[in-house]
């Protein structure tokens, strides 16, 4: 089972747990509606359509309303500490939450006390908290963009806003930033770095880069980073090793973007609609590759 943890940008959205249903450009969870155009709902929507394509159960969502004040995040942290270990999720994806190192550590400890850690993926605010906590290596996957990679690479930075000036967010410096992130023990076991070129790497080496199809207009579209995290989570719960899942997710997200024929004004739901077809194509490519490899 895949569990997705995050927030909805509405202060009066209650704390809810359950399977969200996708209808048009909205998610419905226990009678409450959230737009999938941004934030954790975009990630859930992408994961839901990917799970459907892969033939695995839809994700369980753990959500709270939070416009950034942090009240909803703190309520959710409290709920997670007691309830998340009992869910017995195989994969947990943490997303937009107010970064709070103390709460992060309590939740990691609660999961650890339950036994073997599930596969842990962190993106957005929770990734910031995971890095600041010093426990980044406990995570199986982080999905930073270039600016966030610079933050992971700066061992002193408490937030991307305070990433030191000497670390410029230049695409050509990605390998150097990856090295710095791992040298400071601020990288997860695998990193999927989202950029003009997507990098999939471990502490030891860059496993793959994905740069096609190249769709420059995806970068300004809010939510395209969330969708790639949703797809990789779905692939992981379907049984793909994290590194393979990351490579396939990067390809799928690009392909879905290309199929949506986007402009910088495109909204992410238009891309989410294309994920099933894009993922089918990528799965077919993967099957063909395995078949060719088996034939020698």
């Amino acid at each position: 089972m895949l569990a997705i943890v995050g927030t909805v940008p509405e202060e009066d959205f209650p704390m809810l747990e359950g399977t969200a249903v996708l209808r048009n450009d909205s998610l419905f969870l226990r009678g409450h509606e959230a737009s999938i155009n941004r934030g954790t709902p975009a990630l859930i929507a992408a994961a839901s359509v990917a799970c459907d394509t892969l033939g695995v159960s839809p994700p369980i969502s753990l959500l709270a309303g939070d416009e950034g004040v942090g009240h909803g995040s703190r309520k959710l942290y409290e709920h997670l500490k007691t309830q998340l270990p009992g869910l017995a999720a195989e994969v947990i994806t943490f997303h937009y939450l107010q970064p709070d190192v103390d709460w992060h550590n309590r939740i990691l400890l609660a999961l650890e006390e339950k036994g073997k850690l599930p596969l842990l993926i962190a993106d957005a605010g929770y990734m910031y908290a995971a890095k600041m906590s010093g426990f980044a290596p406990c995570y199986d996957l982080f999905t930073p963009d270039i600016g966030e990679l610079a933050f992971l690479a700066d061992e002193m930075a408490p937030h991307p806003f305070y990433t030191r000036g000497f670390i410029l967010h230049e695409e050509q410096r990605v390998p150097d930033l990856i090295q710095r992130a791992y040298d400071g023990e601020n990288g997860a076991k695998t990193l999927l770095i989202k950029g003009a070129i997507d990098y999939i790497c471990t502490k030891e080496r860059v496993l793959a880069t994905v740069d096609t199809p190249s769709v420059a207009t995806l970068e300004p579209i809010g939510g395209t980073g969330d969708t790639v995290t949703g797809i990789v989570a779905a692939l992981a719960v379907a049984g793909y090793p994290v590194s393979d899942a990351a490579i396939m997710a990067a390809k799928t997200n690009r392909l879905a973007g290309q199929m949506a024929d986007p402009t910088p004004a495109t909204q992410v739901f238009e891309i989410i609609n294309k994920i099933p077809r894009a993922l089918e194509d990528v799965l077919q490519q993967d099957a063909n590759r395995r078949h060719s490899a088996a034939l020698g």
Partner: protein
Amino acid sequence: MAFQVLKRRKKRAPKKRNPDRGFLAFENTSEVIKAESIIRTHGWKVNVMGPPPELRTGCDLVIEFPLVEQLNILRLLEEKSLSPLAVVPVDDPLLKPVDLFFTTDYGQHLMVRAANMKLTVDKEALTIVNVSGGGCPDVPFLGAKLVGKNLRQAPSPREIGHTLCGYALHLAYEEMRRQCLLS
């Protein structure tokens, strides 16, 4: 593993002391006391302490606060006519906010990035068409409030945002307004 790591961490010096905390430095002690009272009244956990040697400004007391909520706390203090002399991260008071902007011209659209936040507008209509990047929960909220609005009328992220991501988006917004000759 985490529990083992937690136990192991206790045995050695922690890598970071207070990675998610910041210091507010003020002109004098009475401002510190007033600010502490205002911030506490609004539910934040803060501590008053002596400043680190690197912080060479203000009086001999500083307020330690949750750094990510900097935008919220500064707005609250501003409403009470209190302005700190400096706001810095606890673990390295010499760190400065990112002040580099990256601009990408897509022809009809212009994107400005500040730190981890990106703002994109239609150059002719000046409509904000997308907000991307960031990780704090006010990012999707700010996206919902800004996308579709004209840059001339859109609320400033500094006024409605809450976190450091909101602050970074405000810098991108200001830079976008500057580039579009609005300010």
